[in-house]
Protein backbone atom coordinates (compact mmCIF):
# COMPACT_ATOMS: atom_id res chain seq x y z
CA UNK A 1 0.00 0.00 0.00
CA UNK A 2 2.77 2.38 -0.84
CA UNK A 3 1.40 5.80 -1.49
CA UNK A 4 1.71 6.67 -5.16
CA UNK A 5 3.70 9.58 -6.29
CA UNK A 6 6.06 9.83 -3.38
CA UNK A 7 9.24 10.82 -5.07
CA UNK A 8 11.99 12.80 -3.64
CA UNK A 9 13.20 15.92 -5.28
CA UNK A 10 11.80 18.54 -7.63
CA UNK A 11 8.88 16.49 -8.95
CA UNK A 12 6.98 16.44 -5.66
CA UNK A 13 5.49 19.96 -5.37
CA UNK A 14 3.93 19.71 -8.87
CA UNK A 15 2.40 16.33 -8.13
CA UNK A 16 1.01 17.44 -4.79
CA UNK A 17 -0.69 20.47 -6.33
CA UNK A 18 -2.40 18.42 -9.00
CA UNK A 19 -3.61 15.98 -6.45
CA UNK A 20 -5.01 18.75 -4.34
CA UNK A 21 -7.17 19.98 -7.22
CA UNK A 22 -8.50 16.46 -7.69
CA UNK A 23 -9.20 16.35 -3.98
CA UNK A 24 -11.13 19.58 -4.19
CA UNK A 25 -13.15 18.32 -7.11
CA UNK A 26 -14.03 15.22 -5.17
CA UNK A 27 -14.97 17.21 -2.13
CA UNK A 28 -17.08 19.50 -4.28
CA UNK A 29 -18.87 16.61 -5.92
CA UNK A 30 -19.61 15.05 -2.56
CA UNK A 31 -20.84 18.32 -1.12
CA UNK A 32 -23.14 18.60 -4.11
CA UNK A 33 -24.62 15.24 -3.20
CA UNK A 34 -25.22 16.56 0.26
CA UNK A 35 -26.93 19.62 -1.14
CA UNK A 36 -29.59 17.46 -2.74
CA UNK A 37 -30.90 16.65 0.69
CA UNK A 38 -31.01 20.32 1.51
CA UNK A 39 -32.93 21.02 -1.67
CA UNK A 40 -35.40 18.30 -0.72
CA UNK A 41 -36.05 19.88 2.65
CA UNK A 42 -36.47 23.30 1.14
CA UNK A 43 -38.89 21.82 -1.34
CA UNK A 44 -40.91 20.10 1.36
CA UNK A 45 -41.01 23.20 3.50
CA UNK A 46 -42.21 25.33 0.62
CA UNK A 47 -44.71 22.77 -0.59
CA UNK A 48 -46.15 22.32 2.90
CA UNK A 49 -45.86 25.61 4.69
CA UNK A 50 -46.96 28.04 2.03
CA UNK A 51 -50.41 26.51 1.67
CA UNK A 52 -50.51 25.79 5.41
CA UNK A 53 -49.85 29.45 6.05
CA UNK A 54 -52.72 30.34 3.78
CA UNK A 55 -54.86 27.85 5.69
CA UNK A 56 -54.08 29.49 8.99
CA UNK A 57 -55.19 32.82 7.63
CA UNK A 58 -58.70 31.45 7.72
CA UNK A 59 -58.62 29.02 10.60
CA UNK A 60 -57.03 30.03 13.85
CA UNK A 61 -54.05 27.98 14.92
CA UNK A 62 -55.48 27.63 18.41
CA UNK A 63 -58.76 26.20 17.14
CA UNK A 64 -56.81 23.85 14.93
CA UNK A 65 -54.53 22.53 17.63
CA UNK A 66 -57.00 22.31 20.45
CA UNK A 67 -60.22 21.46 18.70
CA UNK A 68 -61.53 17.95 19.29
CA UNK A 69 -63.76 17.72 16.27
CA UNK A 70 -62.24 16.98 12.90
CA UNK A 71 -64.64 17.07 10.00
CA UNK A 72 -63.17 19.47 7.47
CA UNK A 73 -64.90 18.08 4.43
CA UNK A 74 -68.40 18.04 5.81
CA UNK A 75 -70.89 20.80 6.42
CA UNK A 76 -70.51 22.47 8.88
CA UNK A 77 -66.76 22.03 8.86
CA UNK A 78 -64.70 21.60 12.00
CA UNK A 79 -60.94 21.86 12.02
CA UNK A 80 -59.78 20.54 15.34
CA UNK A 81 -56.81 18.27 14.61
CA UNK A 82 -56.53 16.54 18.01
CA UNK A 83 -58.38 13.38 16.94
CA UNK A 84 -55.91 12.88 14.11
CA UNK A 85 -52.90 13.44 16.33
CA UNK A 86 -54.45 11.19 18.94
CA UNK A 87 -55.01 8.48 16.36
CA UNK A 88 -51.42 8.66 15.15
CA UNK A 89 -50.04 8.56 18.68
CA UNK A 90 -52.22 5.66 19.71
CA UNK A 91 -51.15 3.48 16.81
CA UNK A 92 -47.52 4.54 17.18
CA UNK A 93 -47.46 3.70 20.86
CA UNK A 94 -48.86 0.25 20.19
CA UNK A 95 -46.35 -0.28 17.42
CA UNK A 96 -43.46 0.86 19.59
CA UNK A 97 -44.55 -1.44 22.43
CA UNK A 98 -44.17 -4.31 20.00
CA UNK A 99 -41.21 -3.26 17.89
CA UNK A 100 -38.80 -1.95 20.50
CA UNK A 101 -38.61 -4.87 22.91
CA UNK A 102 -38.92 -7.51 20.23
CA UNK A 103 -36.53 -5.75 17.88
CA UNK A 104 -33.90 -5.21 20.53
CA UNK A 105 -34.32 -8.74 21.79
CA UNK A 106 -33.89 -10.12 18.30
CA UNK A 107 -30.84 -7.97 17.77
CA UNK A 108 -29.19 -9.07 21.00
CA UNK A 109 -29.83 -12.68 20.13
CA UNK A 110 -28.44 -12.28 16.64
CA UNK A 111 -25.43 -10.38 17.79
CA UNK A 112 -24.44 -12.18 20.94
CA UNK A 113 -25.92 -15.63 20.85
CA UNK A 114 -26.38 -16.75 17.31
CA UNK A 115 -23.58 -18.53 15.56
CA UNK A 116 -22.22 -17.30 12.25
CA UNK A 117 -24.28 -19.77 10.29
CA UNK A 118 -27.50 -19.02 12.12
CA UNK A 119 -26.97 -15.32 11.75
CA UNK A 120 -26.31 -15.77 8.07
CA UNK A 121 -29.75 -17.28 7.67
CA UNK A 122 -31.74 -15.36 10.25
CA UNK A 123 -30.61 -11.89 9.40
CA UNK A 124 -31.55 -12.06 5.72
CA UNK A 125 -34.81 -13.67 6.71
CA UNK A 126 -35.52 -10.75 9.00
CA UNK A 127 -34.71 -8.39 6.19
CA UNK A 128 -37.27 -10.19 4.08
CA UNK A 129 -39.86 -9.21 6.66
CA UNK A 130 -38.77 -5.63 6.19
CA UNK A 131 -39.22 -5.91 2.48
CA UNK A 132 -42.85 -6.90 2.61
CA UNK A 133 -44.80 -4.00 1.16
CA UNK A 134 -46.88 -2.05 3.62
CA UNK A 135 -49.99 -2.62 1.51
CA UNK A 136 -49.65 -6.31 2.28
CA UNK A 137 -49.33 -5.64 5.99
CA UNK A 138 -52.40 -3.50 5.81
CA UNK A 139 -54.54 -6.26 4.40
CA UNK A 140 -52.95 -8.75 6.75
CA UNK A 141 -54.04 -6.54 9.63
CA UNK A 142 -57.55 -6.34 8.31
CA UNK A 143 -58.09 -9.90 7.18
CA UNK A 144 -55.97 -11.86 9.66
CA UNK A 145 -55.23 -9.83 12.78
CA UNK A 146 -58.66 -8.38 13.36
CA UNK A 147 -60.48 -11.72 13.14
CA UNK A 148 -57.73 -13.24 15.30
CA UNK A 149 -58.23 -10.61 17.98
CA UNK A 150 -61.95 -11.17 17.89
CA UNK A 151 -61.44 -14.89 18.21
CA UNK A 152 -59.35 -14.53 21.34
CA UNK A 153 -62.04 -12.40 22.86
CA UNK A 154 -60.97 -8.82 22.25
CA UNK A 155 -64.02 -7.06 20.91
CA UNK A 156 -62.50 -4.89 18.22
CA UNK A 157 -64.41 -3.00 15.58
CA UNK A 158 -63.79 -4.11 12.04
CA UNK A 159 -61.42 -1.17 11.67
CA UNK A 160 -59.42 -0.51 14.77
CA UNK A 161 -56.17 0.89 16.06
CA UNK A 162 -55.04 -2.30 17.77
CA UNK A 163 -54.68 -4.49 14.68
CA UNK A 164 -52.94 -1.75 12.80
CA UNK A 165 -50.64 -0.96 15.72
CA UNK A 166 -49.67 -4.59 16.36
CA UNK A 167 -49.00 -5.34 12.72
CA UNK A 168 -47.10 -2.11 12.32
CA UNK A 169 -44.98 -3.09 15.30
CA UNK A 170 -44.15 -6.43 13.71
CA UNK A 171 -43.32 -4.64 10.48
CA UNK A 172 -40.89 -2.42 12.33
CA UNK A 173 -39.08 -5.22 14.20
CA UNK A 174 -36.55 -5.65 11.38
CA UNK A 175 -35.87 -1.92 11.26
CA UNK A 176 -35.02 -1.85 14.93
CA UNK A 177 -33.30 -5.23 14.95
CA UNK A 178 -31.19 -4.76 11.87
CA UNK A 179 -29.75 -1.39 12.74
CA UNK A 180 -29.25 -2.35 16.36
CA UNK A 181 -27.51 -5.53 15.36
CA UNK A 182 -25.24 -3.71 12.96
CA UNK A 183 -24.41 -1.30 15.69
CA UNK A 184 -23.73 -4.07 18.20
CA UNK A 185 -21.73 -5.93 15.61
CA UNK A 186 -19.40 -3.02 15.25
CA UNK A 187 -18.51 -2.99 18.94
CA UNK A 188 -14.93 -4.26 18.90
CA UNK A 189 -14.47 -7.81 19.97
CA UNK A 190 -11.81 -6.96 22.51
CA UNK A 191 -14.42 -5.31 24.71
CA UNK A 192 -16.34 -8.54 24.89
CA UNK A 193 -13.26 -10.66 25.20
CA UNK A 194 -12.08 -8.52 28.04
CA UNK A 195 -15.37 -8.95 29.86
CA UNK A 196 -15.42 -12.70 29.33
CA UNK A 197 -11.87 -12.87 30.52
CA UNK A 198 -13.00 -11.21 33.72
CA UNK A 199 -15.63 -13.92 34.17
CA UNK A 200 -18.79 -12.24 32.94
CA UNK A 201 -21.69 -14.30 31.73
CA UNK A 202 -23.11 -13.84 28.31
CA UNK A 203 -26.07 -12.03 29.78
CA UNK A 204 -23.79 -9.56 31.48
CA UNK A 205 -21.68 -9.02 28.41
CA UNK A 206 -24.75 -8.46 26.29
CA UNK A 207 -26.57 -6.15 28.64
CA UNK A 208 -23.74 -4.30 30.35
CA UNK A 209 -21.06 -4.09 27.71
CA UNK A 210 -22.41 -4.42 24.23
CA UNK A 211 -25.75 -2.67 24.48
CA UNK A 212 -24.37 0.41 26.24
CA UNK A 213 -21.50 0.51 23.78
CA UNK A 214 -23.84 0.34 20.84
CA UNK A 215 -26.33 2.69 22.47
CA UNK A 216 -26.06 5.37 19.82
CA UNK A 217 -26.96 3.02 17.00
CA UNK A 218 -29.64 1.32 19.06
CA UNK A 219 -31.31 4.57 20.02
CA UNK A 220 -31.08 5.68 16.42
CA UNK A 221 -32.90 2.52 15.42
CA UNK A 222 -35.65 3.16 17.99
CA UNK A 223 -36.17 6.67 16.74
CA UNK A 224 -36.21 5.55 13.14
CA UNK A 225 -38.77 2.92 14.04
CA UNK A 226 -41.02 5.38 15.87
CA UNK A 227 -40.71 7.95 13.13
CA UNK A 228 -41.67 5.40 10.57
CA UNK A 229 -44.62 4.39 12.70
CA UNK A 230 -45.96 7.92 12.87
CA UNK A 231 -45.48 8.41 9.17
CA UNK A 232 -46.82 5.06 8.04
CA UNK A 233 -49.78 5.42 5.74
CA UNK A 234 -51.00 2.24 4.11
CA UNK A 235 -51.45 0.01 7.14
CA UNK A 236 -53.57 2.57 8.93
CA UNK A 237 -55.34 3.59 5.75
CA UNK A 238 -56.49 0.03 5.22
CA UNK A 239 -56.95 -1.31 8.73
CA UNK A 240 -57.26 1.46 11.27
CA UNK A 241 -60.23 3.22 9.84
CA UNK A 242 -61.15 6.64 8.62
CA UNK A 243 -63.16 7.95 11.51
CA UNK A 244 -61.52 10.82 13.35
CA UNK A 245 -62.00 9.70 16.93
CA UNK A 246 -60.20 11.00 19.99
CA UNK A 247 -59.89 7.95 22.19
CA UNK A 248 -57.46 5.84 24.18
CA UNK A 249 -59.37 2.68 23.39
CA UNK A 250 -57.41 0.80 20.74
CA UNK A 251 -60.37 -1.36 19.84
CA UNK A 252 -62.09 1.52 18.14
CA UNK A 253 -61.64 2.88 14.67
CA UNK A 254 -59.56 6.02 14.42
CA UNK A 255 -57.99 8.10 11.71
CA UNK A 256 -54.34 9.04 11.67
CA UNK A 257 -52.85 12.17 10.16
CA UNK A 258 -51.30 10.16 7.36
CA UNK A 259 -54.50 8.33 6.47
CA UNK A 260 -56.29 11.63 6.26
CA UNK A 261 -53.67 13.12 3.95
CA UNK A 262 -53.68 10.06 1.71
CA UNK A 263 -57.42 9.75 1.51
CA UNK A 264 -57.97 13.43 0.87
CA UNK A 265 -54.94 14.06 -1.30
CA UNK A 266 -55.40 11.08 -3.54
CA UNK A 267 -58.95 12.15 -4.06
CA UNK A 268 -59.98 15.21 -5.71
CA UNK A 269 -60.68 18.15 -3.53
CA UNK A 270 -60.37 21.22 -5.74
CA UNK A 271 -56.90 22.72 -5.59
CA UNK A 272 -56.75 25.97 -3.72
CA UNK A 273 -59.85 25.39 -1.67
CA UNK A 274 -59.81 25.47 2.11
CA UNK A 275 -60.48 21.75 2.23
CA UNK A 276 -57.47 21.13 0.01
CA UNK A 277 -55.28 23.20 2.28
CA UNK A 278 -56.18 21.00 5.22
CA UNK A 279 -53.85 18.45 3.66
CA UNK A 280 -50.98 20.86 4.05
CA UNK A 281 -51.99 22.02 7.49
CA UNK A 282 -52.04 18.43 8.72
CA UNK A 283 -48.89 17.65 6.74
CA UNK A 284 -47.14 20.58 8.31
CA UNK A 285 -48.24 19.45 11.77
CA UNK A 286 -46.88 15.99 11.07
CA UNK A 287 -43.63 17.44 9.80
CA UNK A 288 -43.17 19.62 12.86
CA UNK A 289 -43.85 16.69 15.20
CA UNK A 290 -41.28 14.46 13.54
CA UNK A 291 -38.81 17.34 13.43
CA UNK A 292 -39.16 17.87 17.16
CA UNK A 293 -38.70 14.15 17.82
CA UNK A 294 -35.58 14.05 15.77
CA UNK A 295 -33.97 17.04 17.41
CA UNK A 296 -34.47 15.30 20.74
CA UNK A 297 -33.09 12.03 19.46
CA UNK A 298 -30.00 13.58 17.93
CA UNK A 299 -29.26 15.20 21.28
CA UNK A 300 -29.69 11.85 22.97
CA UNK A 301 -27.45 10.07 20.52
CA UNK A 302 -24.74 12.65 20.86
CA UNK A 303 -24.83 12.34 24.61
CA UNK A 304 -24.41 8.60 24.64
CA UNK A 305 -22.07 8.01 21.75
CA UNK A 306 -18.92 6.28 22.71
CA UNK A 307 -15.93 6.45 20.53
CA UNK A 308 -13.41 3.68 20.20
CA UNK A 309 -9.86 4.34 19.14
Amino acid at each position, binding site marked *: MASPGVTAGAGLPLRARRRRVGEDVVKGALALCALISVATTVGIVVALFVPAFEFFQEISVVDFLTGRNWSPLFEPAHFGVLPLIGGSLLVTTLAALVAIPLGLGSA*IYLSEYAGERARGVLKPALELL*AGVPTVVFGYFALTFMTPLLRRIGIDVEIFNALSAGLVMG*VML*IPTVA*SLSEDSMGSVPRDLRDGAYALGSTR*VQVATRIVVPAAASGIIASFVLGISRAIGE*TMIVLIAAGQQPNLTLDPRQAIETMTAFIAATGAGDVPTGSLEYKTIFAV*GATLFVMTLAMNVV*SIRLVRRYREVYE
Partner: protein
Amino acid sequence: MSRALKGGVFKALLLLSLAVGFVMLGALLVDVFRDGLPYVDWMLLSNPPSSSPLDAGARPAILATLYIAGLLLLLAVPVGVGTAIYLEEYASKTRWYNRLLEVNIQNLAAVPSIVYGILGLAFLVRGAGLGRVLLAGALILTLLVLPTVIIAAREAIRAVPDSIRQGGYALGATQWQVVSRQVLPAAIPGIATGSILALSRAIGETAPLIMIGAVTYIAFDPTLLGPFTALPIQIYSWVGLPAEEFKFLAAAAIVVLLGILLVMNALAIWLRNHYRRSW
Protein backbone atom coordinates in the same frame (compact mmCIF):
# COMPACT_ATOMS: atom_id res chain seq x y z
CA MET B 1 -27.21 -21.92 39.76
CA SER B 2 -29.43 -18.87 39.60
CA ARG B 3 -27.00 -17.29 37.21
CA ALA B 4 -27.42 -20.11 34.78
CA LEU B 5 -31.16 -19.92 35.22
CA LYS B 6 -31.18 -16.20 34.59
CA GLY B 7 -29.04 -16.79 31.55
CA GLY B 8 -31.40 -19.43 30.28
CA VAL B 9 -34.48 -17.34 30.84
CA PHE B 10 -32.85 -14.37 29.17
CA LYS B 11 -31.86 -16.42 26.16
CA ALA B 12 -35.36 -17.87 25.95
CA LEU B 13 -36.86 -14.38 25.99
CA LEU B 14 -34.56 -13.29 23.23
CA LEU B 15 -35.45 -16.29 21.13
CA LEU B 16 -39.08 -15.52 21.74
CA SER B 17 -38.61 -11.99 20.42
CA LEU B 18 -37.07 -13.37 17.31
CA ALA B 19 -39.76 -15.97 17.04
CA VAL B 20 -42.64 -13.51 17.10
CA GLY B 21 -41.36 -11.75 14.04
CA PHE B 22 -40.86 -14.99 12.19
CA VAL B 23 -44.17 -16.48 13.22
CA MET B 24 -45.96 -13.43 11.89
CA LEU B 25 -43.89 -13.51 8.75
CA GLY B 26 -44.70 -17.18 8.41
CA ALA B 27 -48.41 -16.63 8.86
CA LEU B 28 -48.37 -13.85 6.30
CA LEU B 29 -46.38 -15.84 3.78
CA VAL B 30 -48.47 -18.97 4.18
CA ASP B 31 -51.61 -16.92 3.72
CA VAL B 32 -50.28 -15.16 0.65
CA PHE B 33 -48.68 -18.19 -0.97
CA ARG B 34 -51.66 -20.40 -0.38
CA ASP B 35 -53.92 -17.93 -2.12
CA GLY B 36 -51.52 -16.64 -4.70
CA LEU B 37 -49.22 -19.43 -5.86
CA PRO B 38 -51.81 -21.16 -8.05
CA TYR B 39 -52.20 -17.89 -9.85
CA VAL B 40 -48.54 -17.25 -10.53
CA ASP B 41 -48.24 -18.26 -14.12
CA TRP B 42 -47.01 -17.00 -17.42
CA MET B 43 -50.29 -15.15 -17.86
CA LEU B 44 -49.68 -13.08 -14.76
CA LEU B 45 -46.31 -12.01 -16.02
CA SER B 46 -47.19 -11.31 -19.61
CA ASN B 47 -50.76 -10.09 -19.65
CA PRO B 48 -51.94 -6.61 -18.94
CA PRO B 49 -54.66 -6.19 -16.32
CA SER B 50 -58.25 -6.87 -17.16
CA SER B 51 -61.61 -6.68 -15.48
CA SER B 52 -61.97 -10.37 -16.08
CA PRO B 53 -59.81 -12.23 -13.58
CA LEU B 54 -59.31 -15.02 -16.09
CA ASP B 55 -57.25 -12.83 -18.33
CA ALA B 56 -55.71 -10.38 -15.98
CA GLY B 57 -52.00 -10.06 -15.65
CA ALA B 58 -49.63 -7.60 -14.05
CA ARG B 59 -47.12 -7.07 -16.82
CA PRO B 60 -47.10 -3.26 -16.96
CA ALA B 61 -46.92 -3.08 -13.19
CA ILE B 62 -44.06 -5.58 -13.00
CA LEU B 63 -42.06 -3.81 -15.68
CA ALA B 64 -42.59 -0.44 -14.05
CA THR B 65 -41.44 -1.78 -10.69
CA LEU B 66 -38.30 -3.23 -12.26
CA TYR B 67 -37.52 0.02 -14.05
CA ILE B 68 -38.01 1.93 -10.82
CA ALA B 69 -35.69 -0.45 -8.97
CA GLY B 70 -33.01 0.09 -11.57
CA LEU B 71 -33.40 3.85 -11.52
CA LEU B 72 -33.22 3.89 -7.73
CA LEU B 73 -30.00 1.92 -7.78
CA LEU B 74 -28.47 4.37 -10.22
CA LEU B 75 -29.68 7.47 -8.47
CA ALA B 76 -30.14 6.89 -4.77
CA VAL B 77 -27.11 4.81 -3.88
CA PRO B 78 -24.34 6.97 -5.40
CA VAL B 79 -25.85 10.22 -4.14
CA GLY B 80 -26.54 8.72 -0.73
CA VAL B 81 -23.09 7.24 -0.30
CA GLY B 82 -21.54 10.44 -1.63
CA THR B 83 -23.37 12.47 0.96
CA ALA B 84 -22.38 10.05 3.69
CA ILE B 85 -18.74 10.24 2.70
CA TYR B 86 -18.91 14.00 2.68
CA LEU B 87 -20.40 14.12 6.14
CA GLU B 88 -18.12 11.56 7.70
CA GLU B 89 -14.81 12.26 6.04
CA TYR B 90 -14.76 15.76 4.72
CA ALA B 91 -17.16 17.93 6.61
CA SER B 92 -15.71 19.69 9.59
CA LYS B 93 -18.02 18.86 12.48
CA THR B 94 -17.72 22.27 14.02
CA ARG B 95 -19.17 24.18 11.12
CA TRP B 96 -22.79 25.10 11.69
CA TYR B 97 -23.87 24.25 8.20
CA ASN B 98 -22.58 20.72 8.48
CA ARG B 99 -24.38 20.17 11.75
CA LEU B 100 -27.50 21.54 10.14
CA LEU B 101 -27.01 19.13 7.28
CA GLU B 102 -26.90 16.23 9.72
CA VAL B 103 -30.08 17.28 11.46
CA ASN B 104 -31.65 17.84 8.09
CA ILE B 105 -30.96 14.30 6.95
CA GLN B 106 -32.12 12.78 10.21
CA ASN B 107 -35.34 14.64 9.85
CA LEU B 108 -35.86 13.73 6.23
CA ALA B 109 -35.64 10.06 7.14
CA ALA B 110 -38.67 10.53 9.34
CA VAL B 111 -40.78 12.47 6.88
CA PRO B 112 -43.74 10.33 5.94
CA SER B 113 -43.74 8.92 2.45
CA ILE B 114 -47.00 10.66 1.75
CA VAL B 115 -45.32 14.03 2.18
CA TYR B 116 -42.81 13.07 -0.47
CA GLY B 117 -45.82 12.32 -2.59
CA ILE B 118 -47.09 15.86 -2.09
CA LEU B 119 -43.61 17.17 -2.87
CA GLY B 120 -43.52 15.17 -6.07
CA LEU B 121 -46.93 16.33 -7.12
CA ALA B 122 -46.14 19.97 -6.49
CA PHE B 123 -42.67 20.16 -7.97
CA LEU B 124 -42.18 17.34 -10.40
CA VAL B 125 -45.58 16.64 -11.81
CA ARG B 126 -46.93 20.17 -11.88
CA GLY B 127 -43.89 22.39 -11.33
CA ALA B 128 -41.38 20.87 -13.71
CA GLY B 129 -44.20 19.80 -15.94
CA LEU B 130 -43.05 16.21 -16.07
CA GLY B 131 -46.57 14.99 -15.71
CA ARG B 132 -47.65 11.75 -14.08
CA VAL B 133 -44.84 9.69 -15.50
CA LEU B 134 -42.54 6.89 -14.45
CA LEU B 135 -39.54 9.18 -14.13
CA ALA B 136 -41.37 11.39 -11.65
CA GLY B 137 -42.24 8.33 -9.57
CA ALA B 138 -38.64 7.14 -9.62
CA LEU B 139 -37.28 10.56 -8.67
CA ILE B 140 -39.65 10.91 -5.77
CA LEU B 141 -38.82 7.47 -4.48
CA THR B 142 -35.13 8.34 -4.80
CA LEU B 143 -35.61 11.36 -2.56
CA LEU B 144 -37.61 9.17 -0.21
CA VAL B 145 -34.92 6.55 0.33
CA LEU B 146 -31.97 8.91 0.17
CA PRO B 147 -31.93 9.73 3.90
CA THR B 148 -32.12 6.05 4.87
CA VAL B 149 -29.24 5.21 2.56
CA ILE B 150 -27.24 8.12 3.92
CA ILE B 151 -27.83 7.18 7.55
CA ALA B 152 -26.95 3.55 7.01
CA ALA B 153 -23.87 4.45 4.98
CA ARG B 154 -22.77 6.84 7.67
CA GLU B 155 -23.07 4.22 10.38
CA ALA B 156 -21.08 1.86 8.21
CA ILE B 157 -18.37 4.40 7.49
CA ARG B 158 -18.26 5.46 11.12
CA ALA B 159 -17.76 1.86 12.12
CA VAL B 160 -14.48 1.67 10.23
CA PRO B 161 -11.86 2.22 12.93
CA ASP B 162 -9.92 5.40 12.69
CA SER B 163 -6.66 3.51 12.89
CA ILE B 164 -7.21 2.41 9.32
CA ARG B 165 -7.50 5.99 8.17
CA GLN B 166 -4.57 7.18 10.24
CA GLY B 167 -2.50 4.40 8.82
CA GLY B 168 -3.31 5.50 5.32
CA TYR B 169 -2.50 9.13 5.99
CA ALA B 170 0.68 8.12 7.71
CA LEU B 171 1.75 6.42 4.53
CA GLY B 172 1.11 9.61 2.58
CA ALA B 173 -2.18 8.80 0.93
CA THR B 174 -4.55 11.62 0.04
CA GLN B 175 -7.92 11.86 1.67
CA TRP B 176 -9.72 10.51 -1.35
CA GLN B 177 -7.34 7.60 -1.61
CA VAL B 178 -7.93 6.67 2.00
CA VAL B 179 -11.65 6.96 1.53
CA SER B 180 -11.93 5.13 -1.74
CA ARG B 181 -9.45 2.38 -1.08
CA GLN B 182 -9.71 1.73 2.63
CA VAL B 183 -12.81 3.16 4.20
CA LEU B 184 -15.36 2.48 1.49
CA PRO B 185 -14.49 -1.15 0.88
CA ALA B 186 -14.58 -1.75 4.63
CA ALA B 187 -17.93 -0.04 4.89
CA ILE B 188 -19.57 -1.88 2.02
CA PRO B 189 -21.30 -4.54 4.16
CA GLY B 190 -23.13 -1.90 6.17
CA ILE B 191 -23.85 0.19 3.12
CA ALA B 192 -25.24 -2.84 1.34
CA THR B 193 -27.54 -3.61 4.28
CA GLY B 194 -28.83 -0.08 4.41
CA SER B 195 -29.33 0.14 0.68
CA ILE B 196 -31.25 -3.14 0.61
CA LEU B 197 -33.61 -2.02 3.34
CA ALA B 198 -34.07 1.30 1.63
CA LEU B 199 -34.67 -0.08 -1.85
CA SER B 200 -36.98 -2.77 -0.54
CA ARG B 201 -39.03 -0.19 1.21
CA ALA B 202 -39.16 1.94 -1.90
CA ILE B 203 -40.29 -0.89 -4.16
CA GLY B 204 -43.23 -1.55 -1.88
CA GLU B 205 -44.26 2.08 -1.43
CA THR B 206 -47.75 2.88 -2.47
CA ALA B 207 -48.62 6.25 -0.94
CA PRO B 208 -46.27 8.57 -2.88
CA LEU B 209 -47.16 6.91 -6.15
CA ILE B 210 -50.86 7.36 -5.46
CA MET B 211 -50.26 11.05 -4.85
CA ILE B 212 -48.43 11.53 -8.11
CA GLY B 213 -51.10 9.68 -9.95
CA ALA B 214 -50.00 6.18 -10.81
CA VAL B 215 -53.08 5.24 -12.74
CA THR B 216 -54.81 2.03 -11.83
CA TYR B 217 -55.64 0.70 -15.27
CA ILE B 218 -52.90 0.68 -17.83
CA ALA B 219 -52.67 -1.95 -20.50
CA PHE B 220 -49.41 -1.17 -22.21
CA ASP B 221 -45.75 -1.40 -21.29
CA PRO B 222 -44.56 1.62 -19.35
CA THR B 223 -41.94 3.98 -20.70
CA LEU B 224 -39.78 6.44 -18.83
CA LEU B 225 -41.92 9.42 -19.73
CA GLY B 226 -45.27 7.72 -19.96
CA PRO B 227 -48.09 6.94 -17.56
CA PHE B 228 -47.44 4.01 -15.29
CA THR B 229 -48.60 1.88 -12.46
CA ALA B 230 -46.46 -0.14 -10.11
CA LEU B 231 -46.85 -3.55 -8.47
CA PRO B 232 -47.91 -2.27 -5.05
CA ILE B 233 -50.57 -0.08 -6.63
CA GLN B 234 -51.73 -2.97 -8.79
CA ILE B 235 -52.00 -5.09 -5.67
CA TYR B 236 -53.89 -2.37 -3.83
CA SER B 237 -56.36 -1.88 -6.65
CA TRP B 238 -56.85 -5.61 -7.18
CA VAL B 239 -57.69 -6.18 -3.56
CA GLY B 240 -60.12 -3.31 -3.86
CA LEU B 241 -62.12 -5.06 -6.56
CA PRO B 242 -65.19 -6.96 -5.44
CA ALA B 243 -64.69 -10.26 -7.26
CA GLU B 244 -62.94 -12.75 -5.04
CA GLU B 245 -60.56 -14.00 -7.73
CA PHE B 246 -58.89 -10.63 -7.66
CA LYS B 247 -57.82 -11.22 -4.09
CA PHE B 248 -56.01 -14.32 -5.30
CA LEU B 249 -54.50 -12.37 -8.15
CA ALA B 250 -53.37 -9.76 -5.68
CA ALA B 251 -51.76 -12.51 -3.62
CA ALA B 252 -50.06 -13.78 -6.76
CA ALA B 253 -48.76 -10.31 -7.52
CA ILE B 254 -47.45 -10.16 -3.96
CA VAL B 255 -45.61 -13.42 -4.58
CA VAL B 256 -43.99 -11.90 -7.65
CA LEU B 257 -43.06 -8.77 -5.75
CA LEU B 258 -41.54 -10.82 -2.95
CA GLY B 259 -39.67 -12.80 -5.57
CA ILE B 260 -38.12 -9.64 -6.93
CA LEU B 261 -37.20 -8.53 -3.42
CA LEU B 262 -35.70 -11.93 -2.69
CA VAL B 263 -33.40 -11.69 -5.68
CA MET B 264 -32.35 -8.18 -4.64
CA ASN B 265 -31.73 -9.34 -1.10
CA ALA B 266 -29.75 -12.37 -2.17
CA LEU B 267 -27.51 -10.18 -4.27
CA ALA B 268 -26.92 -7.80 -1.40
CA ILE B 269 -26.25 -10.60 1.07
CA TRP B 270 -23.66 -12.00 -1.29
CA LEU B 271 -22.08 -8.56 -1.50
CA ARG B 272 -22.06 -8.17 2.23
CA ASN B 273 -20.59 -11.56 2.96
CA HIS B 274 -18.03 -11.25 0.23
CA TYR B 275 -16.67 -8.10 1.81
CA ARG B 276 -17.26 -8.66 5.50
CA ARG B 277 -14.37 -8.09 7.82
CA SER B 278 -14.08 -7.96 11.54
CA TRP B 279 -11.91 -5.76 13.57
